[in-house]
């Protein structure tokens, strides 16, 4: 009995001791600007998390950790596996335990929403590196988005289609928030410019076989099909599109750039050729800023590796954080950092003339019209048109 008691108390003591060991050491806050980076590095969204992580890490590597004499920037990385509960808890820990000045990462909208209250309460700016739901930046005055919204890509896609001879279109999206968002955006852009939507289907996220959907769409006889599906499903969609005979009949396959990521395109089958997308980035962008970026990327991640729209958001977000840290120093308060971030201008951004609109705290950038063509035997995005920098249309249609 006594032995048991001793063993038990010993176990409890051991537990506490190990917990103290696990607790991070508190660095002096004076000379280190701490940034908390949270993304799904495991789980079903690992590809997204990995992408923004690479972009961010590349920036850190190229620019180093010394932002000014005696001041360093430290990025604390945490994996939340794409689970919003984790996101919230980890954010709390980053703020309370690690004393970060800025939180970044955030690949998905649910994770962003899970954070909004904390960010507002703690007055910590959150730099969204992905997370594309338009209303997200309104859920907290401390959110700044560096990626894009579904409306920024799908709406111009609709406009483009209507203005280029497509009178009748059908849409097929994955049945989740981002998919539904882009479906609505495309519809508005398309119908506002004279087009007519003849079918709008939503496929469950678990779908892997799209042929039945394409058969159904075929019956509506559209001139273009707008698609937006969750990660990894595009080859199946493109194949189904061809198998149903739609490609042969001259129907255009269009969509936002999310499904034609430059790195993933390389390994996709030739079925995706001809896919037209409206995207915030293309790896082949000829600007000097992008050429330097791609060069650094290949040097770090391999000659055959390519960045994509999410990786470049990570890069740009990091550059804004570095700028704020440099300008304000490690003792800065949340409101000042927020102001700096909200007024960011990316003069040498790989995405061209990108900047943040201080009123909506959302990104403003030029949209590229890309077409997938076979280049050196592999599918790749070729930009054939570029629009002027534009804000998120959703906010224009839904004023606060």
């Amino acid at each position, binding site marked *: 009995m006594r032995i048991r008691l001793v063993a038990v108390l010993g176990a409890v003591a051991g537990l506490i001791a190990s917990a103290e060991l696990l607790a991070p050491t508190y660095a002096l806050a004076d000379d280190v600007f701490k940034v908390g980076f949270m993304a799904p590095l495991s789980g079903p969204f*690992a590809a997204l998390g990995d992408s923004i992580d690479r972009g961010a890490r590349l920036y850190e590597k190229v620019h180093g950790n010394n932002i000014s004499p005696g001041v360093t920037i430290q990025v604390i990385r945490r994996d939340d596996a794409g689970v919003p509960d984790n996101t919230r808890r980890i954010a709390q820990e980053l703020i309370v335990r690690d004393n970060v000045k800025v939180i970044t990462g955030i690949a998905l909208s649910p994770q962003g929403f899970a954070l909004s209250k904390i960010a507002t309460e703690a007055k910590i700016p959150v730099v969204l590196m992905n997370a594309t739901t338009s209303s997200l930046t309104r859920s907290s005055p401390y959110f700044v988005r560096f990626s894009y919204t579904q409306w920024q890509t799908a709406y111009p896609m609709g406009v483009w289609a209507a203005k280029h001879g497509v009178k009748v279109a059908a849409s097929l999206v994955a049945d989740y928030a981002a998919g539904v968002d882009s479906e609505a955006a495309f519809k508005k852009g398309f119908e506002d410019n004279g087009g007519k939507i003849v079918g709008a289907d939503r496929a469950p996220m*678990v779908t*892997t076989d799209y042929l039945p959907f394409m*058969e159904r769409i075929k019956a509506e006889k559209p001139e273009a099909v707008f698609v937006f599906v969750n990660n*990894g499903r595009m080859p199946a969609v493109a194949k189904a599109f061809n198998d149903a005979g739609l490609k042969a009949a001259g129907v255009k396959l269009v969509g936002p750039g999310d499904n034609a990521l430059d*790195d993933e395109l390389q390994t996709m089958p030739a079925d995706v050729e001809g896919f037209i997308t409206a995207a915030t980035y293309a790896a082949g962008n000829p600007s000097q800023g992008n050429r330097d970026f791609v060069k650094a990327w290949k040097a770090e991640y391999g000659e055959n590796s390519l960045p994509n729209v999410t990786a470049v958001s990570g890069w740009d977000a990091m550059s804004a954080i570095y700028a704020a840290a440099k300008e304000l120093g490690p003792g800065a308060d949340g409101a000042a950092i927020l102001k700096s971030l909200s007024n960011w201008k990316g003069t040498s951004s790989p995405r061209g003339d990108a900047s943040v609109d201080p009123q909506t705290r959302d990104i403003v950038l030029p949209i590229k019209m890309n077409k997938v063509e076979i280049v050196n035997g592999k599918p790749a995005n070729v930009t054939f048109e570029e629009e002027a920098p534009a804000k998120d249309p959703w906010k224009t249609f839904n004023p606060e």
Partner: protein
Amino acid sequence: MNVSETLISILFTGTAYAMVLYIISVGLSITMGLLGIANLAHGAFAMAGGYLLITLLNRLTLPFGLALVLSAVIVAGFSVVLERLLYARVYKAGEFDQVLLSVGLIFVASAIAQYVYGPIPKTVAVPLSLTGNIDLGLRTFPVYRIFLVATGVAIFVMLLIVIERTNIGMRIRATVDNRAMAEAIGINTKTLFSVVFAVGSALAAIGGGLGGDMIAITPGYPLENLAYFLIVVSIGGLGTVSGPFLAALLLGIGDSACKILVPQFGAFFIYLSLFGFLLLRPGGLLNRVQEQ
């Protein structure tokens, strides 16, 4: 679309998908019926087959048929090792322990897949001779899907012949019906288990590789598709080769019908019909295993 066109679309798309499900799941049905173990990790063999096929095709540029057979053989061999080392030790343990073992295997397999191949889904480069559409008068059909249907039917027929007409098939059926009795009359059940396990895994590997462009090959494959394989097996009943065939057809065609006719129904169809079906016939369609 008029009625006959719709019908043909549904039947065709559904059957091709059904064949992939069947090829993968039939091994699971026999294994579970024969060995009595709940092997939820079966999808991992299909995933392994898919990844191996991709590696053999891309890295070693082997011809498609050879690569397919080779990947099946490698997976089969590996599965026998697993069976002897791990599964054999939980034959007598509770069902819960078997579920746990297979979940553990799924995690390990997914982690290895992610480490080696990365999280981005991979697609199989199908040989050119099987791509494109073919015009059969009524309408055009994708060649690859026709190939899948033909392969599925061929495998089904082959399995049926083996099970019903050969010695080994007889032994399998005997052991499924009554293991104790089979052992008593001298059937070497241990070797039989290993052989059946190997064949089941080989089939899964083939199904995973062939079905690669309909069921994407990602590290999450075994968990994401677990429900579908289990549905085929539980509706089809354990221990037969025909049960899963019927079940896969029902599932595939039903799924296609829903997508074409009432897509807003979404995933409800599958889960609701599973519920209804299992309640009416808990033993499955053509159950062979004696419920005690």
